[in-house]
C-alpha cells in the first residue's frame, strides 16, 4: 500500500520517537517571493511539514495576527494562482512537505476539481479546510483522496464523542487538534485538560494527533510530549512578518529570526530522540 507524503512524515517521526514540528506561513505576506524564501529556510531547518495559508478576506477561524497577515497579502494583490506557482517552485526544489490551509470559499469559487488538481500538481501533500466541518466534508474528502491528497480534519475541545468518531472516519494524514475553544493565536498557556483530551482521542485512532491554535514555543512542547504526535505554530511565526512594516527590520533579518525560532522548535521536538 502506498503511503501519502504526510503519512511518511509521521512514520519517520514515530520511528525516531519524537514529535513533528509544523510551522505555518501566510502566502504572499509581504509578497510571494518572501514566502518562497521562508519555505526554503524552514526546510533547511528540517521542520517536518509546512502549512501554507491561503489569504482569505473573511477568515473566522483565525485570530487577529493571521487575519492582519491575510489583509496585508490581499492588499498586495495575491491570487490563488500565484500561490500554486510559488509552491510548485518550492516543492520541485525539495522543500519539506506542504499542506494548504484554505477557506472553502476559495476552493468552491475556483472549483473543487480544478483546485484539487492544481494543488496536486503544485506538489501539495494535503489540505486543511478549517470551515468544512466533518459533516460537510465526506464527499470532499473522497474527492481529495482521489487526487492523491490527504484531507486533514479538525477536532475541537467542544467536539463531543459522537462527532469525534465521525470525523476520525473521514480524516486522513493527521488529526488537527484545536487546543482551545477560540481562534488561532499565540497564548501563554495551554489548557490543562488538553492532554486528557488527546489521550482520549488516542484511544480511538491511530491517526497522528497534531496540536494547533495557541501553541507558541518550545516550552509547550514538553507538555505535549507523549500525548501528541506534532505541534503546529502559526501566529508566533506570522508575528515576525509584522516587523517588515517598520523600516528597521530587513527581509534577511526576518528570515534569520524565523529560522532561529524554527531551529529551537526542531530541537525541542527532537529532544527525546536525542536523549535516547
Amino acid at each position, binding site marked *: 500500500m502506498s503511503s501519502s507524503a504526510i503519512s511518511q512524515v509521521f512514520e519517520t517521526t514515530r520511528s525516531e520517537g519524537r514529535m513533528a514540528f509544523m510551522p505555518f506561513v501566510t502566502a504572499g505576506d509581504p509578497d510571494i517571493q518572501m514566502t518562497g524564501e521562508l519555505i526554503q529556510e524552514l526546510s533547511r531547518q528540517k521542520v517536518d511539514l509546512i502549512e501554507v495559508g491561503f489569504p482569505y478576506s473573511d477568515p473566522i477561524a483565525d485570530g487577529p495576527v493571521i487575519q492582519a497577515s491575510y489583509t496585508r497579502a490581499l492588499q498586495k494583490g495575491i491570487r490563488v494562482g500565484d500561490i500554486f506557482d510559488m509552491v510548485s517552485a518550492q516543492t520541485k526544489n525539495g522543500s519539506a512537505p506542504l499542506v494548504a490551509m484554505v477557506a472553502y*470559499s476559495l476552493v468552491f469559487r475556483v472549483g473543487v476539481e480544478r483546485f484539487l488538481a492544481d494543488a496536486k500538481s503544485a506538489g501539495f501533500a494535503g489540505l486543511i479546510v478549517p470551515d468544512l466541518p466533518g459533516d460537510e466534508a465526506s464527499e470532499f474528502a473522497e474527492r481529495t483522496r482521489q487526487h492523491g491528497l490527504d484531507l486533514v480534519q479538525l477536532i475541537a475541545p*467542544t467536539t463531543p464523542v459522537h*462527532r469525534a468518531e465521525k470525523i476520525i472516519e473521514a480524516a486522513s494524514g493527521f488529526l488537527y487538534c484545536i487546543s482551545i475553544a477560540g481562534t488561532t493565536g499565540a497564548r501563554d498557556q495551554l489548557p490543562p485538560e488538553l492532554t486528557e483530551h488527546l489521550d482520549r482521542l488516542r484511544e480511538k485512532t491511530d491517526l497522528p494527533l497534531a496540536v494547533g491554535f495557541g501553541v507558541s514555543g518550545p516550552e509547550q512542547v514538553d507538555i505535549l510530549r507523549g500525548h501528541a504526535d506534532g505541534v503546529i505554530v502559526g501566529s508566533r511565526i506570522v508575528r515576525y512578518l509584522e516587523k517588515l512594516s517598520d523600516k528597521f527590520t530587513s527581509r534577511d533579518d526576518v528570515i534569520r529570526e524565523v529560522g532561529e525560532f524554527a531551529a529551537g522548535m526542531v530541537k525541542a521536538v527532537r529532544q527525546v530522540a536525542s536523549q535516547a
Partner: protein
Amino acid sequence: MSTSSVPLSQVPDAAGRFGEFGRRFVPETLMHALEELTEAYASAKADPEFNRQLDDLLMNYVGRPNPLYHAERLSEQAGCNVYLKREDLNHTGAHKINNSLGQALLCLRMGKKRVIAETGAGQHGVATATACARFGLECCVFMGEEDIRRQRLNVFKMKTMGAEVRPVTSGSRTLRDATNEAMRDWMATVENTHYILGSVVGPHPFPLIVRDFQSVIGKEAKKQCEAAFGKLPDEIVACVGGGSNAAGMFYPFIDDDVKLTGIEPGGRGPNAGDHAASLSHGEKGVLHGSYSYVLQDDDGQTLDVHSVSAGLDYPGVGPEHSYWKDAGRVQYLSVSDDAALDAFRTMATLEGILPALESSHAIAHLLATKDQRSGSENVVICLSGRGDKDVQEVARVLGQEI
C-alpha cells in the same frame, strides 16, 4: 435544485439545506453549539409554554399586532392601493425585535448568561440590547467603526440599556466585519454565550430560526389583508440586505399565488464596490458559514460593498432568498441610493412617516413601477423600520445641517 412537486415552504432539511443553499461552513469549534441550538429550537418550537411566552411578549412588550395601514396619498402617487405593514411601530422601531426576543428566550432555555450580536444600522443591536435588558442577560454588540459613525443614536441607545458596543476596526469596518468578529468571539465563549444573529444568514439553524421568528410579520399581514380587502394581496414588496424582514414577510405567502418582490441596495451603480446587491450581481459561494449568493471576485474573496443604508450594506444574503431566486418564486431587483433617498422624502411629505432607509428602497421600487400598475391592484410594502436613526445620515448626504 428545487422541484415543483415539493412546496417551497418545506425547507430547510435537517442539514440546513434550502435546495443547494444554506448548510454549515464553520470551524469545528462551533459545530457543537450549532447542534445544541438546533435541538433547543426544535424543542422550544414544540413547547406551548415557550410559544405562549413569546406571543405574550410580542403583544404586550412589542405592541403586536402592528397595523396594516392603507397609505392613501402614497397610493395616489403609486397608482395602486398601497398598504404598509407597520414594523416601524414596534417597540425599538423595527422588525428586529421579533427575532431578538425569540432568541433571547432560547438563550434562557439553554441556560446561557451572555449574548453577543452583530449590527450594521444598529437596529438589531438595539433590539438585542433591549431583549437582554428585559431578561437580565449580559450583552456585547459588535459594530463596525464606520457604522458607529453613521448610527450614533443607536449606539447611545444600546449603551444606555447596559450593552457593551465593541467597535470593529478590521476590513471595511461595517456589518460584514462585525459579523466576522462576532463569530470569532462566539468560538472562544461558546460554552456560556449565545450568538443572536440578526438576519436570515449564517450557518444552520440561524436562517431557519430567524425566518420563523420573523414570520409573524407575514402571518399577521395575511389576516389583515383578508380583513382589509377580503383576499390576498396582488404583490408584496420588501427590502433585502441579509433579508430578514423580507423572509418573515414572504414566507407565509410562499405557497400562495401572490407576486413577491425583493429590493436590493443598488447603491451608486452596478460596478463592483458601488452596491450591495448580492442576488442581482453576486455568484454562488460561501460566506459566514452559509452557501448562498455572495459578492465576490474570481478567487472567492468577498468584495467591498456600498449602500447609503447601513442596514443593507452586506455582501451576502440569506440562503432561502437564493433558493427562492433560483426557483423563480421571488423577483429580486435593485434600486439606487438616490431613488431610496427620494422615496424617504416622498413618504415623509405624503404620509408623515419617516421610513428607515432600508424600507425606502422598497418604496422607491413602488414609485418607479407606477406606470405598470392598475388602480385596483393591492400592494403590501413591509415598512421594516422607522427612519429616526437615519436622519443624521440623510442630512449629511443631502449636505444639510441639523
